[in-house]
């Protein structure tokens, strides 16, 4: 068919040979391996300059195209109007080609102008005649039954994407948000869209002039589309996170990162938007730093008011810490964590000053923060500066009051003012000796006020009564209290005051013990001179006197350790640090450190609990000793007064006297026994305490003070010897010499002498054993001499530990006369 048609055509040609040749060439061409043969043919026909032969070229083209596969021709450009207009001859051909290539209804002829009009609507997100919104695919699309070239269809669809983006952005800008930052964002995006509207107006202008083509629009729309895409990206990131509730900081962080985009246009776009959106945040910061106020309805600022019900206005110690807090999720990207804390601190200081100290004058010498400052280093420097200035003001305000209060607390709660405490104790002792339930606050208070008269200043002291438990006297529940006013409440809060009370309690106890011991001493003074008849009584009194001295030595040293090492050293450290601090938090911290230090050194914390128990037991024994001594001294008094009478009635009541004297002796023995029992227990406790003190390094000094001549150490070792002689000799041979000092001891060690007497009595029953005994005694005497030589040797090195006794008025070294006396005493016991 084709061949015949071709032939028919060719016969019409004027130049038949040419036609044949052409046909031939085409045939040959088809056998080559060119891909785009049809295009090539088309091209050649187009460039041909056979002007006269246009008619047949059309015909040939016609036939050619009929014979070939037409659909292989791929036009990707619309036919420009010019050519359509200027080449009317080609018009039919072009139409044919168009009709063949376009899909759809060929009868509907749509001009480009219509399409452009519709496109202008669709890029504003509005549906139009030929472009509709396809909800399934969520895009704007040219209607499918319209005949336009696929090229233009594609182009149109691409530009409709613009419309889709625009619609999305518009939904964002038109929704209502509480948050100020989001509102600012909406505004800035609206401003950016103004550019877009301008472009559309320009398009309409051009359309009116009919110089607008689809291609032109495409080129013009490229940049705005890019911007729209970016904005849409940012918005989508924000809106997906709305549920998290942290939109504003997220928005700003994302914008901040995008403003550092590589493409300069995008970065400019976003820095413009960022500029607008951070205005509310900057406003918040300015308000907070310079005014301390917080007007944040949508809760976007990273500092928020802590609205828990626990905080009451009364409990102002908590105000400083808990009124405001930083919400770390809401800190925007540009503000570092340090800076945000400094900002928080500054506002907190202002608020606190205003509330607690009623201080309203603030320096406003600083410029407000601007947005440009926000991302730069200068911002942190600025914030730092403002912070420091406000903190300095705060410290200046607080410091004088603080120092006064601190000094007062030291004088009274930490027993700094000695004479006041002493007079107080004297006045209170009768009241406090009553059982706890009978102590009333008003009586104690009145006594306290009378004590005040001894001091010239007026002091804000109060009496606080603790919870009494069973068997408590007034002593245990008494506590001094210092009233503290508003601003210093934050530093001296409840917890800290509790620890102060604990320290006071402890010190008060020790003072009480000291007080009782001085009372004992007073009692003693009456009995310093006793007639020599009452040897037993005298010895008992001496014994009790020595015990009292021992206890006094302990208490005095312990108390001085507490006051000096525990309190004063910590105090000095604290005062030194006080001058260096720059803000309230630091002040609170070092104050707490100071108190914990004291608690630590005075065994009041959990670590020193066992030591504390020991100490309390020791105090207990001292109190018992006092009662014991009272008994002894009253008995002694009775005795002395009685014997005066007895001498007169001597002749009459001989028998009775003997009975009485025996009774008296028994009673004497009882008292002495109880005293010795007490001493034994007391010394046991001392040993334990000293053991404990040995273990810790910093308590070495205390240990040394309490046992500077190793008296207790010697007793411990001698005790072991007394219980088991042979075992001790086995254990440590070189110490045998020292041990034999025992018989030469001061006459108060009756306990040690008596069992030896008993032993020797048992030996004497057996003659054999008597020989052994004699040898033993000789050995003792020899070793005794050796021991004396050793002691002399030791004395050169000023170390004679076991010879010295505790601080008493009996001379520490025995004279030769006394030594001989002791020997005689020992040898005389053999005769029993």
């Amino acid at each position, binding site marked *: 068919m084709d061949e015949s048609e071709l032939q028919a055509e060719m016969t019409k040609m004027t130049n038949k040979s*040419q036609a*044949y*040749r*052409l046909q*031939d*060439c*085409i*045939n*040959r*061409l088809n*056998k*080559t*391996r*060119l*891909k*785009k043969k049809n*295009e*090539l*043919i*088309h*091209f*050649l*026909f*187009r*460039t*041909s*300059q*056979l002007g006269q032969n246009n008619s047949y*070229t059309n015909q040939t083209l016609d036939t050619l195209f009929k014979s070939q596969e037409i659909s292989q021709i791929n*036009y*990707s*450009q619309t*036919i420009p109007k010019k*050519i359509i207009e200027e080449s009317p001859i080609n018009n039919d051909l072009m139409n044919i080609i168009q009709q063949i290539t376009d899909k759809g209804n060929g009868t509907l002829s749509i001009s480009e102008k219509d399409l452009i009009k519709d496109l202008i609507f669709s890029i504003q997100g509005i549906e139009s005649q030929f472009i509709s919104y396809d909800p399934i695919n969520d895009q704007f699309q040219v209607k499918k039954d319209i005949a336009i070239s696929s090229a233009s269809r594609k182009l149109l669809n691409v530009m409709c994407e613009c419309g889709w983006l625009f619609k999305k952005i518009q939904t964002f800008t038109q929704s209502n948000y509480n948050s100020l930052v989001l509102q600012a964002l909406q505004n800035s995006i609206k401003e950016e869209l103004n550019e877009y509207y301008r472009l559309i107006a320009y398009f309409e202008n051009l359309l009116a002039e009919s110089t607008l083509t689809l291609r032109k629009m495409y080129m013009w729309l490229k940049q705005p589309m890019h911007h729209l895409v970016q904005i849409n990206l940012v918005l989508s990131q924000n809106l997906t996170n709305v549920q998290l509730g942290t939109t504003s900081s997220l928005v700003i962080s994302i914008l901040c990162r995008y403003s550092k985009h590589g493409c300069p246009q995008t970065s400019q776009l976003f820095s413009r938007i960022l500029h607008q959106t951070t205005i509310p945040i900057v406003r918040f910061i300015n308000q907070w730093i310079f005014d301390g106020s917080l007007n944040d309805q949508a809760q976007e600022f990273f500092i928020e008011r802590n609205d828990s019900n626990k905080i009451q206005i009364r409990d102002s110690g908590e105000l400083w810490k808990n009124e405001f807090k930083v919400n770390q999720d809401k800190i925007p990207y540009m503000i570092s964590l340090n800076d945000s804390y400094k900002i928080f601190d500054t506002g907190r200081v202002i608020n606190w000053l205003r509330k607690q100290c009623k201080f309203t004058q603030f320096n406003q010498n600083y410029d407000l923060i601007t947005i440009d400052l926000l991302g730069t280093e200068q911002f942190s420097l600025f914030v730092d500066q403002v912070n420091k200035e406000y903190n300095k003001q705060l410290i200046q305000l607080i410091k004088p009051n603080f120092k006064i209060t601190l000094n007062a607390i030291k004088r009274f709660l930490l027993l700094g003012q000695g004479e006041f405490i002493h007079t107080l104790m004297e006045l209170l002792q009768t009241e406090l000796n009553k059982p706890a339930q009978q102590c009333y606050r008003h009586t104690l208070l009145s006594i306290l006020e009378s004590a005040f008269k001894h001091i010239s200043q007026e002091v804000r002291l109060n009496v606080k009564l603790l919870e009494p438990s069973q068997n408590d006297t007034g002593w245990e529940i008494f506590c001094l209290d210092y009233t503290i006013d508003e601003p210093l409440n934050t530093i001296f809060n409840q917890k800290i005051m509790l620890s102060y009370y604990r320290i006071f309690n402890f010190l008060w106890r020790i003072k009480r013990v000291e007080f009782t011991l001085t009372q004992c001493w007073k009692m003693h003074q009456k009995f310093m001179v006793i007639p020599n008849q009452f040897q037993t009584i005298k010895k008992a009194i001496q014994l009790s006197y020595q015990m009292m001295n021992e206890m006094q030595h302990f208490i005095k040293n312990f108390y001085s350790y507490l006051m000096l090492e525990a309190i004063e050293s910590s105090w000095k450290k604290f005062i030194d640090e006080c001058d260096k601090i720059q803000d309230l938090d630091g002040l609170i911290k070092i104050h707490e450190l100071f108190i914990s230090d004291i608690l630590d050194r005075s065994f009041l914390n959990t670590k020193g609990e066992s030591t504390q128990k020991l100490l309390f037991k020791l105090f207990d024994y001292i109190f018992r000793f006092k009662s014991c001594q009272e008994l002894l001294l009253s008995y002694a008094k009775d005795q002395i007064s009685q014997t005066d009478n007895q001498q007169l009635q001597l002749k009459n009541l001989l028998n009775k006297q003997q009975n009485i004297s025996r009774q008296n002796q028994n009673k004497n023995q009882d008292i002495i026994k109880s005293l010795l029992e007490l001493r034994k227990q007391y010394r046991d406790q001392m040993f334990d305490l000293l053991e404990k003190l040995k273990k810790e390094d910093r308590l070495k000094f205390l240990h040394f003070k309490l046992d500077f001549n190793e008296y207790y150490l010697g007793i411990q070792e001698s005790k072991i010897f007394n219980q088991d002689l042979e075992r001790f000799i086995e254990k440590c041979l070189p110490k045998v010499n020292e041990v034999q000092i025992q018989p030469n001891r001061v006459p108060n060690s009756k306990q040690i002498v008596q069992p030896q007497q008993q032993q020797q009595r048992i030996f004497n029953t057996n003659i054999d054993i008597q020989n052994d005994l004699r040898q033993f005694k000789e050995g003792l005497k020899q070793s005794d001499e050796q021991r004396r030589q050793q002691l002399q040797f030791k004395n050169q090195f000023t170390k004679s530990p076991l010879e010295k006794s505790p601080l008493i008025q009996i001379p520490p070294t025995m004279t030769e006369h006394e030594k001989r006396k002791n020997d005689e005493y020992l040898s005389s016991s053999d005769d029993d």
Partner: protein
Amino acid sequence: MQQNINGSNIKSQIRVSSLSEKEEAQETLEIIQEMSQILNCGLDRQQLAILVSMIENGVNPEALSLVVNEMKTELNTYKKIHKQ
């Protein structure tokens, strides 16, 4: 003449099957040259080679033809001016 055509057809067929690539390309170019001569395009060998390669690479022939015509007219006017 038909015989001629037929003969040339057979010849060309035989030729196509036995030629290497280079020679194939040359052959193609010759054909195209003939066609352009018949149609009086006014393009010489080099130009044709370029244009054919452009079309093979996907350039729109319509546009290309327009461009070529434009260039020709410009060239003519330029030559006229230069001559004067």
